[in-house]
């Protein structure tokens, strides 16, 4: 494997992690806002 593809292989994982983090954070804050609007505890 060339250095280019090895570099891509190493650096693709933090990109995926960033995507997952954004997804989780979005879902969390949406639930938090919903709970806030309803005046109920989130958990």
């Amino acid at each position, binding site marked *: *494997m060339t*250095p*280019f593809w*090895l*570099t891509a*292989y*190493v*650096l693709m*994982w*933090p990109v*995926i*992690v*960033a995507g*997952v*983090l954004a*997804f*989780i*954070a*979005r*879902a*969390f*804050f*949406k*639930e*938090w806002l919903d709970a806030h609007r309803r005046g109920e*505890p*989130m*958990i």
Partner: protein
Amino acid sequence: MRLRAGRAGGSQDVEETGAQARVDDVQLQQLGGPLTVGLLVLFFGLTMLISLRISRRKENADAYMTAGNGIGLGVSAASMTATWIWAASMYASATSGYVYGISGPIHYGLWGALMILFIYPYGRRIRAVAPRAHTLAEVMYARHGRSSQLMLAGSNVLGSVISLTSNFIAGGALISMLSPFSFSQGIVVIAGGVLLYTLWSGFRASVLTDFIQVCAMLGAVVVVIPAIFFAMGGPAVFVEGASNLTPQQTSFFSSDAFLNQGAPYIAAVLAYAIGNQTIAQRLFAVREDLIKPTFITATIGYGATIIGIGMLGVVALYAGINPMEGDLNNLIPQLAGTYFGPVLLSVFFIMIIGSLASTADSDLSALSSIMMADIYGRAGKRKADPRLMLTIGRATMVIATGAALYFAGARMNILDLLVLVGAIWGALVFPVIASFYWEKVTNKAFTVSVLAALAIFFPVRFGWIPMDGAVGYVFDVVAVVGVGVVAGLMTFGFFGARPARIVGVVAALGVAPFGIGFLHDYAVLSGSLIAYAVSTVVCTAMSLSNRTGFDFSRIAGMTGDFDVEAVEPAAASTAAPARSGSQIPQTR
């Protein structure tokens, strides 16, 4: 500060100047004392604040164990991801990358991630059968009886105490390596911090703080991986260090990596995912329609995080770095200490603290739930007192923390103990899964099959039986059956019994020509596969002779809420069946 550690006899020659440590001829950047304290106060202070905000003067016993069975996707996905990622898995993935080369992290992280995915169909079935249960062992009590329940509960107590110990050790080692504080001071601070924010609100605090911890952890991973990679030379390291790798280490299809890392890990993590109460607890807590997206998100989040950290081991291999004191567990902290300044080192420090705290609080919640629901709540005919349950849960957390501190201080060999728990759970996987689908499985079949599997596992795993000649071949045949069982179980949840049988048979037949005469050389893999095979064959054979069937609809009524009086009226009216009638299983 400068520290010089000698190799021989454990003696340490310590020299301190500024904020650097020199250990085993490796110059390490360290966090200063005030910065370390500040980071710990920031981390545990924030989690404590969250815990205080959700605390109630009068906690509900069921919410203390499952947070009301209705948590949303953001919290549940964060919690499942944070719980499955622990400090040891980060270190182990990097080790796998360093030892087995470019395919190493895949053979650690990918299989661990996929197992979360493979168990989600089982999770949906378990939740459908027991919508308001608290522990898997509690469901086994309703399905079978006390012996099955105690086997599962006992293995979980052992597993969670070991996991707790392992996380304290990881925290102590990190603090002693990257700060001026000692290992003992480190484990006490970590244990105290985790206990403080988990003690009052239990599982509710555990899952909500998991969100903050997963943000800190994943956020740090996004920064730490590229930062270390480019600090080590970036793409040039793959050119300059290519000669440091063997042909196996440069191959994506390394048989060494698969046989020594991937294959034993597939068998082990399937058992961990099914048997572990920390996962089951989140399964019972999440809103039922969100089980699938929760598990898929956790699969991707865990996989990318752990494989990504494992890549640092691969880069270290290319760069020709030798782990400090020859200990591969030092590799990741060593890279951070070598290449990072105080800011990035602080980010790295929070990443590891987040990973171990999130798993440690889950272990405490799991232990307390087992003691509350299985040891006290479902024992005998008398009605459980929710107030006393809460006291038991909190006392369990304190005692478990004390025990884990003791074991961590004694530096017990955690890996050996984990192998033991993995084997127990491996022996439990088929009987547990079959108990949720097959009405013929009996308490006797469950118990005998697990004990038989363990009785054969130990001699194989620890080499008490000479594997020369025909004996080795016989055990290889059994292990090949185990391959079929694992493949079949992974298929069954998604596609049902018939495809599972076909896949199981094809997998066993496919592996047989290569595995027979060979598998017994790999004791860890062979032992795990044999545990699967024996428990499956014995459980199936004994259950086939059972002429009566179990009515699964009974389970929901036997695993309801304990603390119904304390539930809000609206919630109580919508709650699924509360504990009713006799708590004694009616069918064995």
